[in-house]
């Protein structure tokens, strides 16, 4: 048991610096990763889908920043400084842009509430559950005919 504990302690001491190093090292961005989150300034499409001259210059700019060791967020910030906020494919998670994320959630919630309300209303209206007006009974003529038929079929 002591041996196992000693072995674990040695392993932990060896692994700890490399794990810490991995956490401290900045996450190096890649071109495809950035291309999926920014727009071509002239095409109205994701940069990754465009091969216009303007898009190629934007790629050169991104590659240069990657070579300088900048991470994805720093590159996106630099692109915003160059082209303005429209260059971002996804709205920012602050200010009025938050509504871009909030509206679908609110809409989904309202939709869900609507469906729930409709289901409840529909269940209440089902005959036999006490909801809605009772069905009218058979008329006198129909009752007589029913009696005759039941007698005829020996029911």
């Amino acid at each position, binding site marked *: 048991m002591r041996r196992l504990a000693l072995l674990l302690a040695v392993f932990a001491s060896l692994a700890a610096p490399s794990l810490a190093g991995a956490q401290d090292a900045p996450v190096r961005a890649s071109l495809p990763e950035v291309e999926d989150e920014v727009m071509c*300034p*002239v095409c109205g499409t994701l940069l990754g889908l465009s091969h*216009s*001259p*303007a898009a*190629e*210059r*934007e790629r050169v*700019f991104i590659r240069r920043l990657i070579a300088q060791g900048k991470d994805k967020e720093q590159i996106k910030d630099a692109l915003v400084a*160059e*082209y*303005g*906020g*429209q260059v971002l494919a996804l709205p920012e998670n602050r200010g009025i842009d938050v509504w871009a994320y909030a509206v679908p959630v609110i809409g989904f919630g309202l939709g869900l509430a609507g469906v729930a309300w409709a289901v409840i209303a529909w269940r209440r209206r089902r005959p036999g559950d006490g909801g809605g007006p009772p069905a009218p009974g058979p008329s006198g003529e129909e009752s007589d005919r029913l009696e005759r038929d039941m007698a005829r079929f020996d029911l």
Partner: protein
Amino acid sequence: MDVNLRTAIVVVAVAALLGFLVWGLVKKGESGLAVGEPVPAMALPTLPEGGEGSLEDHRGEWVLMNVWASWCVPCREESPALDRFEKRNRDRITVLGIDTKDLSGDALEFLREFEVEYPQLRDASGDYADAELETTGVPESFLIDPDGNLVAHYPGPFKDEAAIERFAAPALGDGDEAS
């Protein structure tokens, strides 16, 4: 819910949707700025950076406003003729460059390469060119009178200096009509 009310809501919703569609089509079909109308101005950073400028700064002058970008090949082809025109006519007309949807480093390199001396504004997002000037691409040029009204519009590159002079004839007092 009353059946009539429900029908009315559906009819109003469908009418609103159709209205939006028609409005979108009409807006799309509209041309850009109209001749004789005021050309919108917007405060933009100067290029090289360090200040702010606007078309308004040139009120009282004839202005040939040229929208360009360094990545645009026709803009590169047009630039030498535009430079020569500007140097020969700067006492009669101001050439104002609007660099749009461009990287600042690339734009500065363009200005150095073509030894452009006339004033430049940087429309980095393209908001001015797209929304205010309603350009359809680059290059595009606008001839603006001293009152700030549009006199002529030239989509595409000028073939040569003579084409620029014909376009800017009202400002040059040559008596020719702008195209």
